[in-house]
């Protein structure tokens, strides 16, 4: 579904991503992990068009998306959430999710003024889709919260809104940047469950960046480890955490010599 071929990205003298190749197939949940500054968020920014790779190609369903603008990439079916939450703070939860569907609207601005039947039908559909996506998160967002400005929501609820917003774009590939950041353990289990259901019931393919190993362990079909912009390891969670290079990257050389286990130590990295 997504194929990344030998991309490079440098900021000034800093090589953020080096010769990275990666594949994500339909229906997979792929986790990207790595120490701080490993280039995980840069990778997401490259895929979604915020940055343009210096060299290499990114293909989505066979179409080249590197070099396109972010909104064009959304049109093709890739959407994301942000590490530091970028919601439309003064707008309501419902409006936030509706804006994500605006790019699929097939009428002019003037028919939205005249409220032509065609526009009204699409508007109703947008509402249905919005409620459907929000209902993934249960009544947490579905009650009176719908009309509340995002500003007043809790941090966890904002994360949920952002995920619903990304789903509502109509994307088939979702990039989730630390979906469980700022959530307590119970909420984390809940979000783990939701991400799995997003794949199983919603049919989304999911790529996520995460620091909480418990979540990664629970849901990943495949784990990709990045360090200094390079792919360090790739495979199932169990394979990857036992890889010596990964333990070294996370915990340093001495820890590796002492035979430390990443799964035990790095739960809250």
């Amino acid at each position, binding site marked *: 579904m997504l194929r990344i071929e030998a991309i490079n990205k440098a900021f000034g003298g800093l090589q953020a991503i080096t010769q990275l190749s990666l594949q994500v197939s339909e229906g997979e949940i792929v986790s990207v992990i790595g120490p701080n500054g490993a280039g995980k968020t840069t990778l997401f920014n490259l895929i979604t068009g915020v940055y343009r790779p210096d060299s290499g190609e990114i293909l989505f369903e066979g179409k080249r998306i590197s070099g396109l603008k972010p909104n064009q990439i959304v049109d093709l079916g890739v959407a994301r959430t942000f590490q530091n939450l970028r919601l439309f703070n003064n707008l309501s939860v419902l409006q936030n999710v509706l804006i994500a569907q605006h790019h699929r609207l097939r009428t002019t601005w003037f028919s939205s003024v005249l409220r032509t039947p065609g526009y009204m039908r699409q508007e109703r559909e947008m509402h249905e889709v919005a409620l459907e996506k929000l209902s993934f998160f249960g*009544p947490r967002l579905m009650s009176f919260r719908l009309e509340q400005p995002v500003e007043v929501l809790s941090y966890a609820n904002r994360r949920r809104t952002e995920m619903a917003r990304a789903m509502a774009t109509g994307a088939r590939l979702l990039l989730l940047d630390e979906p469980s950041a700022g959530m307590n353990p119970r909420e984390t289990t809940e979000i783990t469950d939701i991400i799995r259901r997003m794949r199983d019931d919603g049919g989304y393919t999911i790529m996520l960046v995460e620091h909480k190993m418990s979540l990664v362990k629970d849901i990943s079909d495949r784990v990709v480890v990045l360090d200094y912009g390079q792919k360090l390891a790739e495979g199932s969670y169990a394979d990857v955490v036992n890889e010596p290079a990964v333990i070294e990257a996370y915990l340093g050389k001495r820890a590796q010599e002492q035979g430390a286990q990443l799964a035990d130590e790095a739960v809250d990295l």
Partner: protein
Amino acid sequence: MVGTPKFGPRGVMLRRLLNVAAVIALVVLLFFVQSSGSVKLGQVFALFAIWGIATVSLNLINGVTGILSLGHHGFMLIGGYVTGLLMLPESARDNLAFSARNSLSDFAIGLSVERWMNALGLEFLATPETLGVRFVVALILGGLLAAVFGLIVGFPSLRLRGDYLAVVTFAFGEVIRLLASTPIMASYTNGALGFAGVPSGFGKSVWWTFGALAITVFVLARLKKGSYGRALQGVREDEVAAEAMGVNIAYHKLLAFVISAFFAGVAGGLWVSWVGTARLDLFLFTLTFYFLVAISVGGTGSITGALIGTVLVVWVRQYGDPLEQAYPLSTWLVAGGVVLVVAALLGWLYRRGRRMQPAAHPIVVGAGVVGGLAALLALLGVFDAQLSSTWQGFGMRAIALSVLLVVIMIFKPAGIMGRREFEWTWLLRDRAEVPTDEERGQDAWLNKGQVEGPVPATEAGEE
């Protein structure tokens, strides 16, 4: 209705009824204004409508899309000059053509809706009775040309950050006025002299102006409420996020500029008609400043707020004359002193209310003492000998408005309305934002229980 599931099923009917009632009430009010016999009152209402159009359209860029644009008077100038030239009566055209000081080109002299109608064989549209039809044509053409300039000015907005863009739009407003008096453009604008004798029956009629205002508010309110308006607000809230959610930033910014400039052009046409002449000094930055004050006072992003703000600005402009007359210096001293004392009192109350330390800030105390002393001494007649000469209060209205704007920006940047719009629900106390007891219970329960499966989509949201 879509987007506001606030009424029950019968609510839509109720709201429509209320809307109709409000329109009827407005028409009755205008009828009374018209028949009251006061020329000034009618003109004030017409001016409110004209400036209301400009303010509401500026609000689309500044408030809804969140781009600070300061070139609105430039768009108005374009619309105003186009309307003025196209509507100029034949007699005035002859004067322009023969006068040596005027430099209108032959081509420009020929730009007349009346002549076009004759040329098209539509003589019945060239009669004095159908002046109104021609005026509408001229207004729309003026709006369209302004919209073209909106597109041009909008382009830098795709590359520039907010404050730079503000300067570029400001420069546009200035440049367009400078250019209008240069030799090339003077053959269309008649230089600094402009056109006198534009029919003034429309700009001063409450029916025409309020009709235009109603159309503007209708279009912009529905635009704001619809999907495009949501996207524009998304651009305002967070450009990066909006783009990441598929909103085409460039298209939407330009859209806001073009629509806004169109209505500004229409407002400019009506404004020229209100004054009766098209002159360059009608389109100073002062205009945009007034609209900015109106938006900021009313609430940035709110159409209702923009209209409330316009009431204030027009009131100050039309009824503020007493401020600008000549009074003895001692009177000014008393007035200034009282203003300072009141300001100090308010400041003290504000600081106390906010529990700021110290509540009696040196600046507050200083202002109070100086103002009090000045007022007291002037009242006692200490300086009467030195202060007997009079002083004309030129510019006092503008000073009052600019002080008001600073105060609003510091103490209540959201303005009166914030970003909200007027809803009938306010009067009916049916506020959907307030959770019911049941919902509160549900929420509390959620925080200890675990998640359930998807909720059927029909449960909430529909009317």
